[in-house]
């Protein structure tokens, strides 16, 4: 076989491979691990659907509304405190001022954060977290990940969440049962808050996995740019 024929043969194989790749559904550039993530999504549907979601639904249905609001406010106040640190890490001093004002007002005059006076007073929430700080510092978003029970995240956001979980104020509580109780109620509160958005997403989506992925990435982008994201380039 001559060298020219070998080259021609290889080109043919390459062209065939390119054609086959063109036939398959193009991979999502944010989600290179899609098959693995979809498997996690399925696992999550079982675990969450049978255990976590029913508990969150029962919490919403049977706990008095003022208690739910107080719980949401308490963890909102903890979040605002974490937000202050991230505001400073990102150099956003006006946001730091707002969030610090919120924490002082709600902790001091709102029964340790159970009442959200600051929102009534019109002080906006900064909503910063360490994942966003990493983004502002220039770390790339990294692949999208769907983690069972935890939900949608990215390598960057997941790293931020882990750092906050270990460094956050609740982690410093020396009393282990109290700390774990707070972790538990915090998780329950977070899951309960997501119920209504989840119901809308499930009713809207042709493919809930893809819908949640796009919504998560869009929302995080919106937060990263402080509510004013530049227009997105048309992705294929």
């Amino acid at each position, binding site marked *: 076989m001559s060298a020219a024929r070998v080259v021609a043969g290889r080109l043919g194989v390459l062209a065939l491979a390119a054609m086959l790749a063109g036939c398959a*559904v193009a991979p999502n550039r944010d989600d290179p691990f899609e098959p693995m993530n979809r498997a996690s999504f399925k696992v999550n549907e079982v675990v969450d659907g049978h255990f976590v979601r029913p508990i969150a639904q029962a919490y919403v249905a049977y706990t008095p509304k003022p208690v739910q609001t107080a719980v949401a406010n308490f963890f909102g106040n903890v979040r605002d405190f974490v937000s202050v640190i991230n505001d400073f890490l990102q150099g956003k001093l006006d946001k730091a001022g707002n969030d610090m004002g919120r924490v002082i007002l709600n902790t001091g005059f709102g029964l340790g954060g159970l009442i959200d006076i600051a929102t009534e007073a019109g002080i906006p929430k900064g909503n910063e977290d360490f994942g966003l700080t990493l983004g502002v510092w220039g770390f790339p978003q990294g692949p999208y990940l769907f983690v069972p029970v935890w939900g949608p995240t990215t390598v960057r956001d997941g790293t931020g969440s882990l750092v906050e979980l270990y460094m956050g104020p609740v982690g410093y509580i020396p009393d282990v049962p109290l700390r774990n109780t707070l972790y538990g109620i915090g998780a329950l509160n977070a899951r309960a808050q997501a119920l209504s958005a989840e119901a809308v997403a499930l*009713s809207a989506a*042709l493919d809930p996995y893809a819908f949640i992925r796009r919504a998560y990435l869009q*929302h995080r982008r*919106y937060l990263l740019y402080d509510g004013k994201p530049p227009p997105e380039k*048309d*992705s294929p």
Partner: protein
Amino acid sequence: MSLHRLPALRLVPAGARRLLALAFIGVALVAFAPPIVRAAADEAPDALVKRVTGEVLALIKSDARIQAGDQARIREVIETRLTPYFDFERMTALAAGRGWRQATPEQKKVLAGQFKTLLVRTYSGALNQYRDQTIKYLPLRSDAGATDVTVRTQVEQPGQAPVQIDYSMEKTASGWKAYDVVVGGVSLVTNYRDEFNAEIQRGGIDGLIKALEAKNGGAGAK
């Protein structure tokens, strides 16, 4: 869909078209007496959003059947009071992205109709959860002659972070119409792009239409 979209009407002179529109509105008035008549073509986009959302939310609070959780009634209210202010064809085009250009006019019509059904259903589900929220209308920042604006609102609810809801609106022959709703940075329309693309790659435009029909029919049967 609205009058100006009917192709046959483009051949009719403007004066006659206005008469025809008046006649149409007269029939509509007799039929269900909605406040659509007040939707003058020169109403400012932010004023339009404020008026329409205000009317719909007031109706939801006062309507006994909606308060009792009657989904059909909520859907009816959305169909008569909200959908006239949306450009579903443009929304579908945005959601389908490049795939839209492959579609025949007939496919476009069917696709837009199915997408509209899906959005109305989703929106009625979301409105069903509407409780004690208050809506703040943020000032409109645009030039006087602009034909494409973003109306920004903020929904506040006790115990939760405020949610920003923006309406992308375009000036059409029959007044301002919304072609996207962006909730907390999540566009209701482009959020469908991945799913629509995947369906088009799998089964073409007809595949996408079938998937939407299955979704709409499947949930309606529940």
